[in-house]
């Protein structure tokens, strides 16, 4: 943290606060619009000029999202797929991250660069072959299909982050375990894992967010109503002729809340993942 003297710069302090206020407006106004619109009646949603404050405030849209629309199903699907994929990524990623960070293996560098390149590959490049593959397996419109794809696509970044955290753990810690006669698996479980917990949080929150928001794969592989995830469900709300914005926004608010809470609680880890996790190595 840099500490600059700001003598006689009180005017700037003021300017900073005014600028910050504009930042809040820039980010906050569209968010306000989303939330406010979700509480308007279907009639008021079509007002011109628009209603700036919902009056009357109604919960109809929230009821409709879970009633005539199947948002409950989409929410359940998203939750199952996201949680299982995140758990798999963390288990498989921790083992790989531990090996690549702490065990003497040849060709580690090549492997890490390959992972980095794979993690930037655009989804469109693989969506057609994966579609054919999942169809042959009979895994279109299933949980396991999307879980497998999400696990694979989030692993490279998770391995990178976890490896960087593992690298930072002092060697003495491992040796204490060895002197106590613990095998490698127990050492990983009882000594390394607790110390790599921040890395697990970081990798976990990134994987969760990526699975929760993913659209292209979910749209292509799980198009049947009973297997749609939230993004696909919201995109397909309504008919060709009318867009039921009220239900869409109510569903959106419900979809944003869990991820918003998670990101808020783990914001320290998100920020460290966005910066150090990706730069180090």
């Amino acid at each position, binding site marked *: 943290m*840099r500490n600059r*003297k700001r003598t006689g710069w009180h005017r700037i302090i003021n300017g*900073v*606060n005014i600028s*910050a206020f504009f*930042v*809040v407006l*820039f980010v906050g106004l*569209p*968010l306000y*619009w*989303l939330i406010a619109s979700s509480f308007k009646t279907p009639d008021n949603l*079509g007002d*011109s*000029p*628009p209603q700036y404050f919902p009056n009357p405030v109604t919960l109809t849209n929230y009821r409709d999202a879970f009633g005539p629309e199947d948002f409950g199903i989409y929410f359940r699907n998203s939750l199952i797929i996201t949680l299982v994929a995140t758990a798999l990524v963390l288990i498989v990623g921790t*083992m*790989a991250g531990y*090996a690549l960070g702490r*065990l*003497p293996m040849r060709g580690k560098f090549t*492997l890490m660069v390959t992972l980095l390149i794979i993690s*930037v*590959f*655009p989804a*469109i*490049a*693989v969506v*057609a*072959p*994966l579609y*054919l*593959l999942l*169809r*042959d397996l009979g895994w279109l419109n299933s949980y396991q299909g999307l879980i497998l794809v999400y696990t*694979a696509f989030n*692993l*490279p970044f998770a391995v990178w982050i976890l490896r960087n955290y593992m690298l930072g753990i002092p060697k003495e810690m491992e040796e204490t375990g060895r002197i106590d006669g613990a095998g*490698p*698996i127990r050492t990983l479980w009882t000594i390394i894992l607790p110390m790599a917990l921040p890395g697990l949080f970081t990798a976990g929150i990134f994987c969760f967010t990526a699975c929760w928001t993913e*659209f*292209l794969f979910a749209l*292509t592989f799980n198009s049947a109503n009973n297997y749609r995830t939230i*993004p*696909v469900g*919201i*995109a397909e709300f309504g008919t060709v002729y009318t867009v039921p*914005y009220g239900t869409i*926004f109510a569903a*959106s608010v419900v*979809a*944003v809340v869990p991820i918003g809470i998670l*990101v*808020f609680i783990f*914001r320290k880890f998100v*920020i460290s993942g*966005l*910066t*150090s996790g*990706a730069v180090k190595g």
Partner: protein
Amino acid sequence: MTTISSAAEQAPVSAPLVGRPDINRKRMARLGWTFTSPALIIIGAVTIFPIVYSVVISFSNATVSGNGVALNGFTTSNYSLVLKNSTWHYALGFTIIYTAITVIVELVIGTMIALVLERLTAGRGFMMALLLIPWSMITVINAELWGYIYQGTYGVADAILNAVGLGHPDVLGTPTPAIIGLMIADIWKTTPFVAIIVLAGLVMLPGDVYEAAEVDGSSGWSTFWRITVPLLRPTLALALIFRVLQAFGLFDLPYVLTNGGPGTATTSLAILGYDAIFKNLSYGPGAAVATTTALLVLLGCLLSLRAFRVQVGKED
């Protein structure tokens, strides 16, 4: 998964690990590969295999039959078809221009926001939490929200445009306004992400350089250009790479907000590839579009990595 359990049985070693470095090392290396193999198998099966398969399809006469796609013989016709196609030319140009403009605007506004937040004395935690919401938001929701804002009769953008005397333009129904509207939605969602990365870089800058600059009588503006920007270059490069790679695969936002239209005005390379494969069932040309897009992304990634590493080298 069986490999893991067998390794678990072998690994708790009978001989003490201390004192025999060579054997120990070999054993540890084997353990390393055992631990890495599940990740490698999953990544290989679900990413590397499809990438290769996609390239194979793009060089084949692919015909869709009842039970799948039949590949009949080698051909380069898919590529010549795509490379000569005017829609592909447009999509390529659109994707490049869209990426360039949004990323530049996001870097500029993001840096400005980061500079403001860095000087903020109170409420930085609140601001960070607020900035993280658009980042974690589902892009489909972002698209629906801006679709409502741009709506032609009751959208709030329409009310604002009318109030400033621009009448009632059909924002999403006219090519240029639709493109600008798409960019605004993207900039709103992604600028906070850039701001957070840049802020983290700003906070890590050494303070003494600034004190020296102040002693030398350097003004705020020249301090920014001559000290902050050069020191911040690795961070800015990182944000740039992240964003360019992401923007080049642009799909969700135009798919929901404009469906690639009006006409083909907002058809990105990813939308073109998706439509070719899943709407027209032209697997060969679709795979060619997908492969060329991936190749461009890969090229961009390697170039940026190289530029980035040179930059990091200079810092040492």
